[in-house]
């Protein structure tokens, strides 16, 4: 494509610093991007097909002719990476395909399945109670993000993995770099390496101790590394992935959900008065807020037709979850937040074999966190105007940097 033609293409993801945090794309952006399939320019000057409709996003993410491996030539990257930036990629199965992906994912599926998450609900509850005590003691006023939304999922995932929560400043900062599209490439490289080194030491200590500790990393060390099924480096990569995915995501959902519920006090009150509807409310929050807003990138490995567009082997595509979640063909009045709609078809966790492995955990954390917040802080309100709230606009996981509240 000639340079002129390239600059004619709309830039994805769109930059809009005054965006309402609750609106993934404004009306103008929707006109520009909601295709069904549109050609866009990425910040790396690569081009890609943007796939925006619910049915097409499902078809694409379930199709074996698309790869999630970002080291393949032509993969639609959203940021430039320093050479070797991702360092040792072993264990990072979110970026693997086929049998390689299945082999590692299957070592974890049982750990995060619904019945096991039900077993750890008491731990989630205790952690919610504890972090809400901290919120109470910190204010009023207080920042809900740093005192509640972020510590809760961080503490839970640390406990499950067997990572010391005391190191949270270290791994939270590095996690954030890894998912920040604006982070300088050299910093990304360094932070990936530091996080890997940190978890490497932890994992090696667990392997050496052969210890009886009942946390996920110790179990994997015992059941998979000791048996020769899994290399230590792979376990380290899995630990990095779980630690990052396990706290940034849920934390951002709690912050944005609180903002949304507090804009309509009746909804917030309904959480307290009708907790039986909390599961449906959480599905609708996931649909409406869709925090992975930049979409899921894939590379076509064969020619495939999606939404009437022939996508050729070697071309990049982006599956846009936020527009799929507001597709009028699936959701009535999609721009409206309706806690009583059945939103189970929402795609906030993705689709296909990479669909979020932590979804039962995320759902339980969100439900318990929001119900307890509404119960214990009935008079909670936001003290900043929406336009003034710092957002993680350059992150691939969207969220609020801060949510000042009082009660």
């Amino acid at each position, binding site marked *: 494509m000639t340079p002129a033609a390239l600059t004619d293409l709309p830039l994805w993801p769109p930059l809009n610093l005054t965006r309402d945090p609750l609106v993934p794309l404004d009306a103008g952006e929707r006109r520009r991007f909601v295709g069904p399939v549109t050609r866009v320019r990425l910040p790396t000057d690569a081009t890609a097909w943007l796939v925006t409709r619910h049915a097409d996003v499902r078809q694409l993410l379930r199709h074996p002719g698309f790869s999630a491996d970002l080291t393949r030539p032509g993969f639609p990257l959203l940021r430039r990476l320093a050479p070797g930036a991702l360092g040792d990629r072993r264990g990072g199965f979110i970026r693997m395909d086929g049998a390689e992906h299945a082999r590692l994912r299957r070592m974890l599926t049982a750990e995060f*399945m619904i019945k096991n998450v039900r077993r750890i609900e008491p731990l989630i509850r205790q952690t919610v109670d504890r972090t809400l005590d901290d919120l109470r003691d910190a204010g009023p006023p207080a920042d809900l993000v740093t005192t509640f939304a972020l510590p809760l999922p961080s503490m839970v995932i640390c406990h499950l993995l067997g990572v010391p929560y005391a190191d949270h400043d270290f791994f939270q900062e590095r996690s954030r770099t890894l998912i920040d599209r604006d982070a300088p490439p050299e910093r990304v490289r360094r932070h990936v390496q530091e996080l890997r080194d940190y978890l490497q030491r932890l994992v090696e200590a667990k392997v050496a101790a052969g210890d009886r500790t009942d946390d996920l990393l110790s179990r994997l060390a015992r059941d998979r590394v000791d048996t020769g099924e899994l290399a230590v480096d792979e376990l380290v990569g899995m630990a990095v992935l779980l630690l990052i995915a396990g706290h940034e995501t849920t934390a951002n959902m709690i912050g944005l959900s609180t903002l949304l519920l507090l804009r309509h006090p009746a909804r917030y009150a309904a959480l307290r008065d009708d907790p039986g509807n909390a599961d449906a409310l959480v599905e609708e929050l996931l649909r409406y807020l869709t925090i992975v807003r930049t979409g899921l990138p894939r590379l076509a490995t064969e020619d495939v037709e999606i939404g009437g567009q022939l996508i050729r082997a070697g071309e990049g595509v982006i599956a846009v979850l936020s527009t799929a979640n507001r597709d009028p063909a699936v959701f009535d009045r999609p721009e409206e937040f309706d806690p009583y709609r059945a939103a189970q078809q929402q795609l906030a966790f993705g689709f296909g074999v990479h669909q979020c492995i932590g979804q039962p955990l995320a759902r339980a954390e969100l439900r318990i966190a929001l119900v307890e917040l509404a119960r214990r802080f009935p008079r909670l309100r936001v003290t900043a105007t929406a336009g003034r709230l710092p957002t993680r606009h350059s992150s691939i996981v969207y969220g609020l940097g801060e949510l000042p509240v009082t009660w």
Partner: protein
Amino acid sequence: MRLRVRVDRDRCCGSGNCVLTAPEVFDQDDADGLVLLRFTAPPPEVGERVRRAADLCPAGAISLD
């Protein structure tokens, strides 16, 4: 005609959507988290939810006939 359900454990990615949608019919294996069927011919009253589970399966591992 009663609905018949089949699952393909090779395709299953253990997302658990089926268990969330129709727990009477689907379960997950304690060993590997992959889908298990409680019934191959579920009672008609859960038919609608079984269809929904098949539709929500991200891996296309549930088929009905």
